[in-house]
């Protein structure tokens, strides 16, 4: 019973636990509930990945209604991988969350916080699992609405304006997606993605479908913060509570990328998306712009959270770059990048959360000589930074390696050059952190500042360890990513 309903349970378990979490009065109980569920989700994600690896794509009809009349859950290798990313981050961030949340939030908000976290998890998982275009919109809204609330719970009043700006942009994006889905439905009469993929080629020379494609693409681009639609992202990451920054930075935009992949490759098909609509050329330029501006702006930031937020904009650019190549190697590189970047950014933001807890600030000038007082945390930042640059033996190296290889395979050596050049920019801003924390003497005494608590340090180092492990042995990951990419790119071939 349990195994055959796994796809539904993957989403239903966090969904059901959200109202239960609200009912638990004590903050500690709410945390325990969220922790248990996060680990259950991870177990299910692993089981699901195994099932997909063994049996191929899994389909689950909700309500037992045949497709396309009912809503279908459809999990292929790509979906299983993205679910795994979300589940890992969720499972690692929850043990971490207790201390950080206790310090950063008022007691009365903690119950609502964990409820919203579970809802956000539900929404993100729901987006990935679903095979129905409208259902995707609904779960997108669940994840978005809950993340607006999570961001607004930050201490600074600017958290409110950041949440508001995100709400406005996010709603515009969602409405664009709704318009696009409506136009697609208008031309085909169906909402099921597989059915859409079958019926769209017959009408893909109509202007309506072209406009539908454009609208959905723009809508999703807002969600994944593709340059120049990224302006909501930095403030949202900076002023949100630390746990929220970690969770959103590591998962939310990745799910946006997933939706983009689904759209280009599964629903519209490679031929329409890339040959007819030339979307590859457009997003490649945007991605290059994102990589360069994101890295450049990051160099000049004195607030570490802001620096990492802009670095995220750049990293999303790399991922999209892989997709824009539209080859098996390129998409595979994009998927590997997505996976690794979630681990890296998760670890980095976690380390920052530790500093925030002890120091109450992440301004560069306040961190001088921090290595003495918080050696493990600073070491984690440096390890994560090296991975961000792409130093060999880290996960970041693997992702950049595959990306450069894919670019060269496509004969695009300028692209490979840009990837390498922007890595140098990354070196600069990572160096600024290293310099401040290791080589500068502390200006004034910081009595009582000591290493972050173990409950926060362990999860951080768990992600770093995972990072290093992938840097050494990436075979499993690349194998799975290749399978996923081949299915995506091959699916649309005649």
């Amino acid at each position, binding site marked *: 019973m349990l195994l055959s*309903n796994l796809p539904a349970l993957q989403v239903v378990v966090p969904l*059901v636990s959200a*109202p239960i979490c609200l009912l638990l009065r004590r903050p500690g109980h709410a945390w325990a509930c969220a922790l248990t569920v996060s680990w259950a989700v991870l177990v299910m994600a692993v089981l699901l990945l195994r099932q997909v690896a063994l049996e191929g794509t899994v389909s689950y009809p909700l309500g037992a209604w045949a497709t396309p009349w009912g809503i279908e859950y459809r999990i292929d290798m790509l979906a299983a991988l993205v679910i795994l990313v979300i589940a890992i981050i969720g499972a690692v961030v929850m043990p971490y969350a207790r201390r950080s949340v206790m310090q950063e939030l008022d007691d009365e908000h903690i119950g609502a916080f964990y409820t919203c976290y579970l809802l956000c998890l539900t929404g993100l998982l729901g987006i990935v699992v679903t095979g129905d275009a409208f259902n995707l919109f609904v779960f997108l809204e669940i994840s978005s609405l809950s993340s607006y609330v999570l961001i607004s719970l930050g201490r600074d009043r600017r958290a409110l304006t950041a949440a508001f700006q995100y709400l406005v942009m996010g709603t515009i994006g969602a409405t664009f997606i709704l318009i696009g889905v409506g136009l697609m439905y208008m031309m085909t009469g*169906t909402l099921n993605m597989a059915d859409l993929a079958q019926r769209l080629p017959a009408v893909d020379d109509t202007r309506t479908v*072209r406009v539908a494609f454009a609208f959905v693409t723009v809508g999703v681009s807002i969600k994944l913060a593709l340059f120049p639609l990224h302006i909501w992202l930095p403030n949202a990451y900076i002023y949100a509570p630390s746990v929220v920054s970690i969770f959103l930075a590591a998962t939310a935009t990745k799910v946006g990328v997933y939706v983009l992949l689904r759209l280009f490759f599964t629903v519209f098909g490679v031929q329409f998306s890339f040959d007819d609509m030339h979307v590859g050329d457009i997003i490649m330029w945007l991605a290059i712009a994102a990589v360069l501006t994101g890295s450049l702006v990051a160099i000049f930031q004195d607030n570490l959270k802001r620096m990492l937020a802009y670095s995220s904009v750049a990293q999303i650019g790399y991922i999209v770059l892989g997709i824009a190549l539209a080859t098996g190697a390129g998409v595979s590189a994009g998927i590997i990048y997505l996976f690794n970047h979630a681990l890296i950014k998760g670890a980095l933001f976690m380390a920052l959360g530790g500093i925030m807890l002890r120091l109450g600030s992440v301004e560069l000038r306040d961190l001088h000589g921090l290595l003495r007082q918080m050696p493990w945390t600073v070491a984690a930042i440096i390890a994560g930074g090296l991975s961000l640059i792409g130093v060999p033996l880290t996960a970041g190296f693997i992702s950049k390696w595959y990306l450069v290889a894919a670019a060269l395979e496509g004969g695009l050596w300028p692209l490979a050059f840009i990837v390498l050049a922007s890595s140098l920019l990354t070196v600069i801003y990572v160096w600024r952190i290293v310099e401040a924390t290791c080589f500068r003497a502390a200006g004034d005494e910081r009595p009582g500042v000591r290493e972050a608590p173990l409950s926060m340090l362990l999860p951080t180092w768990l992600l770093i360890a995972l990072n290093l492990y992938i840097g050494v042995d990436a075979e499993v990951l690349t194998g799975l990513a290749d399978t996923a990419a081949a299915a995506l790119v091959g699916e649309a071939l005649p």
Partner: protein
Amino acid sequence: MQHLVDIVLLGLLMITGFAIVRMRSLLAVTMLTSIYSLFSALLFVVLDAVDVALTEAAIGAGISTILLLATVALTTEYEKVPSHRSLLPLLVVTLTGAALIYGTLDMPHYGDPNAPVHRHVAPDYIEDTPEEIGVPNVVTSVLASYRGYDTLGEVTVIFTAGVGVLALLGVHLRKRTEQPSDYHKLVVLRVIAKLFFPLILLFALYVLFHGDYGPGGGFQAGVIFATGFVLYALTHGLGNAERVIPPALLGILAAAGVLLYSAVGIEGMLLGGKFLEYNVLADDPVSGQHLGILLIETGVGITVAAVILIIYFGFVSRRPGGADAQDPS
């Protein structure tokens, strides 16, 4: 005739829309928004979407307007003239609009019975509903059964909004004695409200249980139910309304509705079916469907009513200028 009404209503909507952009008194704009929503609800009646019309009127013209009023009362009443004028928004909007118009050129014509939307998937809903689900209202059958999972998502969305408002605004208990300053002037209103109150609740139940046969269902019922309490709070003061239905209870109810809905789905799994499969709930599939639909509609109604009240109480228990002493931020 239908065409004429359609054309005129769209024209009125357009004029109202332009007026909303231009006017600077937010109070006037709020009322125009309510009228805008009312017009679109009328349009939905003309376009045969009776369920949607019911919901749009209750949500758009009703609840949203009241929320807007409360917000305007807590903030400023006049919109400032923008300090700088930029052509960029106009450019973006023009481009987007032009793209959409370009997209309409290949669309099937309005009302065309041969459009793809009327040929694939949807006709089977109309054909199969009587035997598979056994309710005359096809919208209800699709909403609650064929695409019941979307509706679970919808309930979760509204639950999220409830939790969000709870976290952002909180609901602070008011004393019963805290009555509106002009309490004594409201005798007529209070008597009418007291007379209406049970009738409104009764009507909400009617909409809930009649949703299988006519326009209505759990969502609309929840809104009407909440509206009854809003009326009570408006006339008898917030403190009294909170005594009738304490805010602490509302949170529990909001969660309970979602749980009831998911419990029906999980029960389907436990009985050997898929998630949200109602056929296995009873001995014969059609009565299983009936039972399932009734239960989930009740769940939807409970959550929606509770969340709307949480939101309403959250807004009206704030004081202008943010002088809410209990709030630390």
